[in-house]
């Protein structure tokens, strides 16, 4: 989801730009040191490849089709630092040339998709040592983290939607995340069949620590924004009692007894939420890979 200009409030895009610009400069410097100039044409061409690959439609049932988003695929094939830079170049080109995503909102979009999205994709891949489940999970979590971050930023900026619409959009995010996971896995397998050895083995480096850190940061941010937004929504739409009961019930005890302040409670709720999503994805990927192997 590319956020256009006009959607985010000044503090939100300002903060996101202030985070994204030095991060990109840092990653660029690191990538430059690591790769030397021979990677420049490769990274540019792989950016163009993502644009081109998005023209190829994947049927996802019901007559609809999806396409590759690519953050996770790039992080597996080029490594997370290079993937972040390529994704940044893609997003900047989309914003400048195609007006797809705003220029002021570029920082937010870069953070969501090129930094958090890429790291969130790489983490399960490294943790599961490049196994099928890791590839699938990487695709899923890269999209899910990017989309939820975008949603949290919109909420923080004061954009509201009816809770039914929020539920539907989160549902759509989960579906597109699973589609991205399936596409990424299928493409990686096709690539391995065609050119074994093109994809490097996953390396657990500093990127892993950075990824976990970024994910925890993203989780805290999500936790501090989304439940808040959902609560406000619930109050606004007049189904407050019911919605709050559903939202709070699993954590109600903790909130009252263990944690007096609402901030750690939200934090905990966010982390538990992320954890639940992870477990769900893990389950789905198991089932998918089992059925593939069986077939």
């Amino acid at each position: 989801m590319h956020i256009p200009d006009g959607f985010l409030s000044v503090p939100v895009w300002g903060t996101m730009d202030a985070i994204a610009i030095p991060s990109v400069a840092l990653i660029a410097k690191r990538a430059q040191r690591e790769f030397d100039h021979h990677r420049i044409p490769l990274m540019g061409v792989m950016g163009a490849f993502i644009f081109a690959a998005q023209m190829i439609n994947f049927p996802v049932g019901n007559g609809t089709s999806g396409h590759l988003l690519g953050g996770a695929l790039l992080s597996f094939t080029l490594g997370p630092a290079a993937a972040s830079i390529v994704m940044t170049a893609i997003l900047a080109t989309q914003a400048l040339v195609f007006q797809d995503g705003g220029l002021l909102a570029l920082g937010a979009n870069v953070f969501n998709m090129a930094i958090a999205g890429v790291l969130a994709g790489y983490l399960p891949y490294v943790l599961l040592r490049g196994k099928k489940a890791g590839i699938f999970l990487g695709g899923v979590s890269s999209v899910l983290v990017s989309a939820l971050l975008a949603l949290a930023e919109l909420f923080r900026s004061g954009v509201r939607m009816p809770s039914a619409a929020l539920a539907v959009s989160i549902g759509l995010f989960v579906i597109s995340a699973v589609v991205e996971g399936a596409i990424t896995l299928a493409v990686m397998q096709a690539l391995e069949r065609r050119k074994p050895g093109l994809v490097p083995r996953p390396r657990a480096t500093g990127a892993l620590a950075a990824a976990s850190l970024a994910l925890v940061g993203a989780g805290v941010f999500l936790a501090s924004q989304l439940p808040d937004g959902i609560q406000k929504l619930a109050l606004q739409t007049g189904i407050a009692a019911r919605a709050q009961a559903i939202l709070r019930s699993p954590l109600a005890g903790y909130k009252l007894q263990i944690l007096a302040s609402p901030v750690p409670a939200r934090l905990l709720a966010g982390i538990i939420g992320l954890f639940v999503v992870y477990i769900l994805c893990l389950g789905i990927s198991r089932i998918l890979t089992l059925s593939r192997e069986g077939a």
Partner: protein
Amino acid sequence: MRHARVERWSRGNSAIHRRHAAAKILATLALLISIASLRADAVAACGLYLILLFMVAAKARLPLGPVFRSAAAVVPFALCFAVLTALAGDPARAVRLTVRAYLSSLAALLLIATTPMPDLIAGLECLRAPRFLLQIMQFLYRYLVVLMEEASAMRQAGAARAGSVARLRFRQAAAAVGVLFARSYARAEAIHRAMLARGFEGRIPVFARRSFRLSDAAFVAVAAVLVIGVRAV
């Protein structure tokens, strides 16, 4: 293709086209920041900014109809959110979202429609964007159409061969992306070898570097005065 049309517009010759890219980037950013930070009830300012952008487009001798329609590409997406926001009980914000998204998109379009890509990259470099990133963007832009042509040829070939077997279509698409990946990779290596043969040492040489003149500074100053002036109205 929309992108080819914008590219053609950017090759025009007008007082706006001739300004240094960095000056145009600064002016665009000033306008975008102002639009993003307008007060909720600043309806007149939005109208005046639209007139201002209209005048810039006319001065740059761009085809007005296509430019204004092309900037509306953001409207469907914005409208989706606007409808949801209106349903959540904030119709004023819904209108504001759509208007601001359109104005910002129009401003960004005018920047690229009056600045060829190499100039834009030079302008960004002038403003201290990381050179490594800019070089990657240059390659990306250069090979965008080449690889998109390749993908569309592959799509056509795939449809001609097995387009009707529904069960296989997902795997077929994955195989196509895999092939495209491998070909892009091989192409990148060939490009790099060719560049080394031509003396590439990590920098793309620029032959005609435009200097930032007094007229460019004046352009930024006028833009700043207009952008701030409209807010004061």
